[in-house]
């Protein structure tokens, strides 16, 4: 009778290591029972046993399916319970779901990543993929903004990335230690040079940042077809059934989470 694999059944994954990133953000290094192959930009549903499930995009390279990293902010019920878990504990993981980034469409272009807060984890998976075939892209520029210097994730990798790509950082509120840009991440867009004719932009971050980031890109002259958004919504199933993630007729989980802005252009509730 059970001819089909059960779509809701997660496989088990051991927490191999927990890396504290900031006060409220941790990176969980997982070893799934079976290799978890995915494209960067796709996501997984993580289960905290007896608690619940949530959608998260791996922040590790998609070419390393035996070892997954998820960088997760303590933001709600499920994530607060996740943050209490220890190395050696077991989570559930199912997926991957969604479409991922269309890297071929970026070939031969300047790639601008406009990233806010915990948008960095999925962006890091993308970055690993971009760097793997770096010569295919004219230029890789990343603008990353966090609330405060203390909220910046992957601090231990920032310098390494800075050697590989053009990286600009900003914080909403600086402190004495901060000698880079202060202001919301969109101010960084005024500091960069990009050839609009052959550039694509990828926007990942909290809803408000995605809205103003996208509007600013369009304002600067980006073609809506060259702006890629990694959207977020409440998701239970991840497989286009439960309908919680819908924006208009789009299933964010199945038709996305990566969309070209021209797909959303005429919808009334993209940013709600």
């Amino acid at each position, binding site marked *: *009778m*059970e*001819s*089909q694999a*059960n*779509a*809701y*059944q*997660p496989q*088990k994954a051991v927490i191999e290591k927990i890396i504290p990133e900031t006060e409220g953000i941790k990176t969980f290094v997982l070893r799934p029972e079976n290799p978890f192959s995915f494209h960067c930009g796709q996501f997984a549903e993580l*289960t*905290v*046993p*007896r*608690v*619940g*499930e*949530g959608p998260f995009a791996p922040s590790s390279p998609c070419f390393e399916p035996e070892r997954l990293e998820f960088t997760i*902010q303590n*933001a*709600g*019920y*499920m*994530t607060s319970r996740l943050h209490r878990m220890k190395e050696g504990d077991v989570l*559930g993981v199912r997926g991957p779901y969604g479409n991922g980034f269309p890297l071929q469409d970026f070939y031969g272009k300047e790639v601008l990543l406009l990233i806010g807060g915990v948008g960095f984890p999925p962006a890091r998976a993308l970055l690993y993929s971009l760097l793997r075939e770096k010569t295919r892209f004219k230029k890789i520029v990343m603008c990353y903004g966090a609330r405060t210097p203390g909220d910046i994730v992957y601090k231990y990798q920032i310098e390494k990335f800075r050697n590989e790509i053009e990286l600009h950082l900003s914080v909403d509120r600086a402190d004495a230690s901060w000698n880079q840009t202060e202001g919301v991440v969109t101010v960084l867009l005024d500091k960069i040079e990009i050839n609009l004719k052959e550039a694509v932009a990828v926007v990942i971050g909290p*809803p408000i940042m995605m809205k103003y980031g996208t509007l600013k890109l369009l304002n600067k002259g980006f073609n809506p077809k060259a702006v890629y958004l990694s959207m*977020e*919504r*409440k998701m*239970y*199933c991840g*497989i*286009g*059934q*439960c*309908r*919680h*993630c*819908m*924006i*208009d*007729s789009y*299933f964010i989980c*199945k038709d996305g989470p990566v969309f070209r802005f021209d797909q959303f252009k005429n919808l*009334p*509730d993209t940013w*709600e």
Partner: protein
Amino acid sequence: MTEKYQIGKEQWKVLLKEWLGRYTLLAPQKEHRGLGYQKLTPDNDDSAVLVLARAAQPLKAFLLPPLEEVAGETAGTSKPYLFLGVKACDLQALPILDRAFGGDFPDSLYQNRRAESLIVSSDCTEPWETCFCELVGGQPYPSRGFDLNLSEIEESLVLEVGSDRGKELLKGHAESLKEADKKTEQALDKKRKETVRKVKQLNSKFKISKSQRELVAPQWDSEVWSKHAETCVECGACNHACPTCHCYFLDDVTRRAFVKLRGWDACMYSGYAVTAGGHSPRARLHQRFRNRYFCKFKYLDDNYGQIGCTGCGRCIEGCQGLIDMRAAIKDLD
């Protein structure tokens, strides 16, 4: 040409008795104010009401139970049903569920239950006050999606065969089946037209100039949403009673690790789309109210090629705020 047979009421009982031994028979039975699906047993096989109009529950109540285990040890058990007296509006909802739970990640629980169950539908004869199939392009008698359909013509019943499995149900009863004659066909046609007339009459003041989709889709900013949402108490009855609504939540809050439950959710609930951190894309009631109409008449149509309303009227019947979908749509016109 469809196969139609006439059968006497006594022979019908023989058929029922036989089916009782093989299936879980669910049939509309009289409840305090209407009809409700209940199990038919050898002791109450007289109590099935095959006429009148649809029962209180939509078929999703059985094919997609309100709460069930979808991952874990016991996930995957299901029991074959034979649904009796299903009305056209409820048959019309099934293609949406079939598509929603099919696709790239088919839901084996739903699919198995659906594939195993049989549907013996029947014509409506007395539509409820809230019935409006005719306004959404439907009709009060089934024309597809059944294994057998049953119509009552005076002292006999007409059985229309809708599928091979339906034909199978009649196997071994050839001598009690008589092909429907012209006179019966005419009587059936007349009776159906009479019910259509009744539904039309019930809805004469809700007639609209365009399709619901054409009325809803361009009116995102209409005042109608706030106006009609005014008496909504956000109970979610419209969602839960709807034969096509199928939003669900998944939950792991059980005593056993890695057991996952699925339960009906409702987009009218304020917490429905709230993400970690508390953000909701539809924080205000009129936004959730509007979303329901957009989902029914635009989104489901885009997703599955069919609007999500079958005119069953359960959302009207179940509403504590006396909200009438027909009136809201009429207001958009």
